[in-house]
């Protein structure tokens, strides 16, 4: 059992109430930061901790904070990105639902560090039931003097609000999120200017993922140096992993970064192995947009080294033989899963979620979905495979926001690692479209 920073008390009965939460040491970081530290000292601790953004990009949080522009007389905002929509990711929902005060505590401490006097939690609209939980907890915090004017007599004021989305994956992109928070369509903004200069309501803004913000209290309580001791290298701290797919124990696990992938899949502490005694075929280790890896490459890097649950190890080998930790959504495929069908499913998702603002993504995501749909349903041509690779390349890197890349990578990586399976679908349409049919030719070599 590794150290639990975020989930230590998550299953304590009544932890969603202020009373129980405080009994378990809750809001200590607010006391400590507001009464004994300057905002810059808090920022420094977060920098020292090496905490990286937990939403997917993995950008150092302290550095992001230090980019925030601080012009005189202009309000600054902290916005929490709780628009968790990446397929495979459900850690933030579970966390907020069970332990809302932990996020609120993080919001207060982080807002203080950034000098924000109004902060927002933007939560995806589907999670209105979690919004109610958060609002209830916020009301408790106001009543206890932890929010509002002159928090705990420190002279620091903070208002905290929750805002719902309306069903749009793209609003997880930080500038689309800000547009949505302003009551507009979730079209990502052109950058520059970056949110750190012109964000919400044209004011300097930091947007951080739920898990990132919720990690701050521990860092304040225990120092950034202590946090940096957890994990391996530049992957410091713990990470919530959403484990799903064909495993015995799906769920959210807090791991110390550095756990071997093999242990994560097979240990009873985590996924508990592949369900129904089946073989492992592939894993998407960081949410639907990161490259899929066949069983052999998820266990070991191309160089034969053991693959670890860290930012660096999972991306070892680049996109040729590696993937990404992303948002920590670990999706496991057993031997009976069809990669073509899954790739079409993901392509449909990105087609459905493209905002339609810039042309390569708007047109390209639909194109890929339609071609994949044809292949999956027995109407593919051999040249379709190269066409998909080409269309993916035409989208990648040429769009306003990363959704284009997110749509291109799963298609390109599935073809890279499972090309035979695509070819089989095209060559044997009748066999491939029979119920339950799965190509097993590549399985023997790929399974571990």
């Amino acid at each position, binding site marked *: 059992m590794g150290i639990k920073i975020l989930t230590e008390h998550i299953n304590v009965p009544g932890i969603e109430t202020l009373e129980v939460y405080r009994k378990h040491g809750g809001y200590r970081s607010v006391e400590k930061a507001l009464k004994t530290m300057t905002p810059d000292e808090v920022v420094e601790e977060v920098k020292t901790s090496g905490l990286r953004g937990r939403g997917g990009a993995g950008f150092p949080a302290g550095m992001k904070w230090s980019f925030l522009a601080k012009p005189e007389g202009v309000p600054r905002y902290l916005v929490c990105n709780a628009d968790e929509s990446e397929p495979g990711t459900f850690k933030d929902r579970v966390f907020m639902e069970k332990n809302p005060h932990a996020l609120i505590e993080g919001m207060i401490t982080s807002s203080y560090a950034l000098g924000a006097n109004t902060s927002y939690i933007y939560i995806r609209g589907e999670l209105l039931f979690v919004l109610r939980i958060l609002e209830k907890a916020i009301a408790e915090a106001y009543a206890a003097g932890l929010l509002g004017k002159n928090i705990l007599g420190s002279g620091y004021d903070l208002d905290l609000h929750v805002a719902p989305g309306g069903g*749009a994956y793209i609003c997880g992109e930080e500038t689309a999120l800000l547009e949505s928070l302003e009551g507009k*369509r979730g079209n990502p903004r*052109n950058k*520059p200017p970056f949110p750190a200069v012109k964000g919400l309501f044209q004011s300097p803004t930091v947007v951080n993922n739920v898990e990132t913000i919720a990690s701050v209290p521990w860092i304040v309580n225990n120092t950034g140096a202590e946090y940096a001791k957890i994990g391996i290298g530049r992957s410091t701290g713990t990470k919530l992993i959403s484990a799903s797919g064909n495993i015995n124990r799906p769920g959210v696990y807090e791991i110390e970064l550095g756990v071997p992938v093999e242990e994560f899949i097979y240990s009873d502490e985590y996924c508990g192995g592949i369900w129904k005694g089946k073989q492992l075929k592939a894993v998407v280790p960081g949410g639907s947009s990161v490259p899929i890896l066949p069983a052999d490459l998820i266990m070991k890097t191309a160089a034969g080294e053991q693959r670890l649950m860290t930012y660096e190890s999972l991306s070892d080998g680049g996109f040729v033989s590696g993937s990404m930790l992303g948002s920590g959504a670990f999706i496991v495929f057993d031997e009976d899963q069809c990669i073509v069908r899954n790739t079409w499913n993901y392509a449909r998702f990105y*087609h*459905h*979620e*493209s*905002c*339609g*603002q*810039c*042309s*390569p993504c*708007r*047109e*390209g*995501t*639909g*194109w890929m979905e*339609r*071609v994949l749909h*044809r292949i999956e349903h027995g109407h593919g041509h051999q040249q379709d495979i190269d*066409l998909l690779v*080409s269309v993916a*390349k*035409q989208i990648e*890197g*040429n*769009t*306003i926001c990363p959704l284009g890349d997110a749509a291109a990578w799963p298609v390109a990586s599935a073809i890279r690692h499972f090309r035979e399976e695509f070819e089989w679908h095209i060559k044997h349409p009748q066999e491939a479209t029979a119920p339950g049919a799965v190509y097993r030719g590549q399985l023997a070599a790929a399974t571990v």
Partner: protein
Amino acid sequence: MAKITFDGIEVEVEDGTTILQAARKIGGDVVPPAMCFYTPLKGSGGKCRVCLVKVTQGSARDPRPMPKLVASCITPVQDGMVVENTTNEEVLNARKGIVEMLLINHPLDCPVCDQAGECDLQNLSYEHGVSATRYEEPRRTFDRVDLGPYIQLHMTRCILCYRCVYTADQITEKRVHGVLGRGDAAEIGTYIENVIDNDFSGNVIDVCPVGALTDKTWRFKNRVWFTKPLNAHRDCPTCSGKVTLWGRGDTVLRVTARKDEYAEVEEFICNTCRFDKKEMTDWTIEGPRHIDRGSVISANHYELPVVNVPIVPNLPKSTVKKMPTE
């Protein structure tokens, strides 16, 4: 001031100028195309991606290249920046790919489209497109709708540049149309049948880079390359009254704003000038309008015959044209 090198050509521009505007200062063939950016419209640009360029050196201070291609229409220059457009294979390939994307849902109905001959997408495809398509899936189609008595929306042709939305936002008092839906199902519309009724609504026709928004008073009247453009003005209480008339003989077939070589209007005009003043007698004629854009109209200049400079001296520069034999 910032000095940049664009396709090997040095140019000095004001700080804050975009790469595209710097390239336009150089002019000629190196200028990246633009399908969504429109100088008079604040906030436009960044969407169509055809103006992508490669920044091989970020600035004198930080010479690292930018990792991705950038949209030249929204990226400000830095002193010492080095940019490649027509000299960069990656840029040309990306642009070709984007033109292909723009065309997969665009009908090739140019023979019956009023925009043909002055269509930015037509020009773009001619320069960067490929003659055959790799797209064999169903295409997006819409019914034509009338947005009031003067404007027709042919959504099937739209490339979602948002220019008409910015126009309605910025030069009319009350915007009633916008972008509805999302992704490739997004469309320009009014949601519930609404008439675009405003003194300046006709300008959405001028800003449209394709034939999605057309002038109903001009519909199927003629082909643009058969009509003669004239600069004209009238004393208009609503707008500047400075327009271009398009006609044959003494018949005014169409009135538009005056546009520069990048198809950007010089001054927006009102609906009365555009739709109601269709008699030569309504106007004071200033003279022929030279069309500098890369469209077929420019191949049809009539101000003066194609000339050989030494024979007829002191001609305005705009009328000089190279003889094929030169």
